[in-house]
């Protein structure tokens, strides 16, 4: 499988690394060249030596998506820090390039829900955090 990860932040880089370790072809796209360091951190060989690809470019620039290999992608992960960028680029991957599996990180719970209804596979970490906080708060306090 060819996995394209857009956004090499904490989430994106960790997902990219585990996909590579699982034997997938992995290409990462990020606007910041320094984000590459996250892919190398804690590893004995560099990202490229381990077989990973890295492209510097802005997610919604079509040329950057081509350079990162969107045409060959089987799985597309939108994990930049911007909800709007993620939602847009995920729809480009799905509707224009027909990538079979598109997963998009959305921090805003309301839009995560609505876009999920529209057929995007959204993941909203904030919703899980709220749930966990709620449970922790409502637990009886022993003193």
């Amino acid at each position, binding site marked *: 499988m060819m996995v394209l990860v857009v956004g090499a932040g904490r989430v994106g880089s960790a997902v990219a690394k585990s996909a590579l370790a699982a034997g997938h072809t992995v290409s990462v796209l990020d606007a910041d060249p320094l984000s590459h360091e996250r892919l190398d951190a804690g590893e004995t060989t560099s990202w490229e030596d381990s077989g990973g690809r890295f492209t510097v470019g802005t997610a*919604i620039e079509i040329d950057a998506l081509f350079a990162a290999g969107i045409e060959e992608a089987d799985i597309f992960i939108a994990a930049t820090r911007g909800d*709007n960028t993620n939602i*847009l680029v995920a729809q*480009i991957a799905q509707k224009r390039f027909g990538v079979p599996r598109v997963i998009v990180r959305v921090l805003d719970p*309301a*839009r995560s829900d*609505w876009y999920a209804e529209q057929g995007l596979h959204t993941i909203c970490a904030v919703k899980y955090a709220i749930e966990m906080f709620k449970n922790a708060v409502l637990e009886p306090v022993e003193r």
Partner: protein
Amino acid sequence: MYVIVVGGGKVGLNLARELIRNDQEVTLVEQDRQAYLRIEQELEHAVQYGDGTELWVLERAGIQRADLVVAVTGDDEDNILICQVAKEKYLCERIIARCNNPRNLQHFKLLGIGPAVSATDLILNLIEHEVPGHGLVHLLDLPDEQLEIIEVEVVAGAPAAGRQVSDISLPEGSLIISVLPRGKAGFVPTSDTVIQAGDEVLIVLDPGLEQAITSQFAPNGAHG
């Protein structure tokens, strides 16, 4: 008419001002705190603070009853998504989006967001109109109807110069609708009207026929 304008930059603020002056009901949404406070001094209750891509902000602005949503922020992804939820979630019938980077126009089209207004393209169109000796001018594009109207100046020596309208070989799907002789009143031609070099002709056509048409009126790269 109730209009929501998202983005209080130069475009958005001036637009809101003009609409209010024309007695329209307007809410401007601005996400930068400082900019919001500045605008609030002038527009008072007609401006709201918040990120216009968030659903609750749009709902607070009354998007359910908006007749028109105009997204003119400096970020194309924001403008696209604002218009997308306005249209598809809140069923707002009319939207207008600003396209900051003409290379992003393809994304607006992909998601059916339109009309998308690109300042760069507007200025390019103006240049096309203003620059003399430039063969072909797009007067009107009707993408939904799949029709265009162009204006082209007839170059001396072109196949059409000195010929009757009926003898000019135009591709199927195009029609000369007007002849504008230099310095004289324009008119609708008949089949025996003779087209002269220097005349301007207006042609209605299916998109994509420009090349075949200019080769009749202004060949050899006199356009473009």
